[in-house]
């Protein structure tokens, strides 16, 4: 027994760490079924009502809609801009490369509150009314760096021999890019887009500074947390969790199926 214990100590420790990670997720899920009305703090009994009527809490679906719109727009733009930078950094040697790397690193090393506050100060000075578009602008800004880092890793790990082979087979630059390089980098771009979307969807601090009177889902949760978060918020949180998990697992399966077909 004690030998089994010491041999598996690290596995036990890792399992405990994972349980710790999942405790509040499980709690959020369980309380999406709580028959508690507005004050979702104590367990009042099981119900499916919250799941049947996720928009039941006032304004929650307006907030969710805003979050989804902001998420899609900023993911789209940040993924395009970030991927272009990642190709430049991963593919070319040029002057100013290391200062560009530094510029990409800086937003990730800056506390969100500083980015949020500085952007708001700029909008205030320029007399720009904050709202939907200022939020999108802010989200694109902080997502770009994460896209660059994710895609660059993929570009850098690419075997240059594959592109050489395409050129040896008389593919021109454009064909090589479209038929060889781009498909190989695509999983990295997809991962970056997923990361950007979840960063945007979950962002509260920068959004709170730059969204004016627009409500996003995290902002809704924050505002309602003063009186008690409605169970519908747990429903949406749980649904987002399941959807994202499905996408990631599906991506894994597609990836391993492709790898199998190749070998």
């Amino acid at each position, binding site marked *: 027994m004690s030998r089994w214990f010491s041999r598996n100590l690290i*596995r036990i*420790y*890792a399992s405990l*760490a*994972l349980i710790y*990670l999942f*405790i*509040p*997720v499980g*709690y959020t899920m369980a*309380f999406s079924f709580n028959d508690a009305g507005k004050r979702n703090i104590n367990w009042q009994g099981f119900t499916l009502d919250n799941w049947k009527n996720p928009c039941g809490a006032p304004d929650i679906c307006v907030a969710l809609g805003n979050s989804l719109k902001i998420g899609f727009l900023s993911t789209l733009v940040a993924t395009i*801009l*970030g991927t272009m*930078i990642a*190709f*430049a*950094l991963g*593919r070319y040697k*040029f002057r100013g490369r290391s200062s*560009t*790397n530094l510029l*990409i*690193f800086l937003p990730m*090393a*800056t*506390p*969100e*509150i*500083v*980015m949020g*506050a*500085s*952007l708001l*100060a*700029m909008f*205030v000075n320029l007399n720009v009314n904050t709202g939907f578009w200022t939020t999108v*602008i*802010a989200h*694109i*800004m902080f997502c*770009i*760096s994460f896209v660059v880092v994710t895609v660059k890793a993929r570009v850098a790990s690419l075997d240059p021999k594959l592109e050489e082979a395409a050129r040896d087979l008389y593919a*021109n*630059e*454009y064909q090589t*890019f479209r038929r060889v390089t*781009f498909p190989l980098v695509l999983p990295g771009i997809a991962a970056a887009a997923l990361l950007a979307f979840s960063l945007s969807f*979950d962002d*509260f601090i920068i959004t709170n*500074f730059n969204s004016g009177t627009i409500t996003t889902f995290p902002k809704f*949760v924050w505002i309602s*947390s003063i009186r008690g978060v409605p169970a519908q*918020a747990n429903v949406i*949180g749980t649904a*987002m*969790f399941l959807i*994202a*998990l499905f996408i*990631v697992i599906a991506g*894994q399966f597609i990836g391993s199926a492709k790898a199998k077909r190749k070998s």
Partner: protein
Amino acid sequence: MAIAHVSPGTSTHVNPERSGRRIPYLLMLPGLLWLFIFFIYPLINLAETSTKTRAASQETGAFVQTYRFANYLDAFIEYQDQFLRSFSYALMATLLALAISYPLAYAIAFKSGRYKNILLILVIAPFFTSFLLRTIAWKQILGAEGPVVSVLRALHLIGPDTTITASSFAVVMGLTYNFLPFMTLPIYASLDRIDPRLMEASGDLYANGLTTFRKVTVPLSMPGVVAGTLLTFIPAAGDYINAAILGNPTTKMIGNVIDSRFFRIVDYPTAAALSFTLMAAILLLVIIYIRRSGTDELV
């Protein structure tokens, strides 16, 4: 990729050197422009705001530039407790996260066999539930009406008036929890890159498990540890959500002060000065730390 369309066939013959040299700059132009306008310029603007003083009209939100650098000193002196608290909470959370993450990452990298990918997904998965919801969940789990406190009270381990939330313990725990995957993933990435033959070689040279771990595994995983600690420490030091949800008025961090200076008191210069002091302090610590640990991989 519009740029790739430009050169099918012909342009490769027309001075490829020169046209090739422009490509990376053209690729980067829109993204870097975005960062200059919405990241760098606002920071410069914030620096400008930080030395302003209230306008003579006393109107809310009206400030004039007087280059009053004493704003920094005033703000720092007034809020030095919150600064100190932010950095000590962030440091504690980072160390705790490291203690939890390293064995977890190690187990995933070396002991998980074919479940590796599933375990990695499990580490990221909690992220997909809104972090505000998870933090509020902790507040309710550890709260006065929650299950943990009732059990501890029933066992007489804590008194009837003791609470877990609204304390610095809860804030540090929340910070540790929220940034845990930021610590685990980079450590995993660098552990996973280690060539297992290096560990075997160490064993062949009569090193025992512990010595191999100390002399081979740990040094080779340092880039991940450095990246993980930075990715945990930086957001933790600037965070105010955990302190607001899980803390009490005596656990306020510098983020809470900046937030309330901005929104409740509309004192932009002080908020700006505090933001800059925070950022400067973090960058200074980061630079010292990166120099000390001898990895430049991040930048």
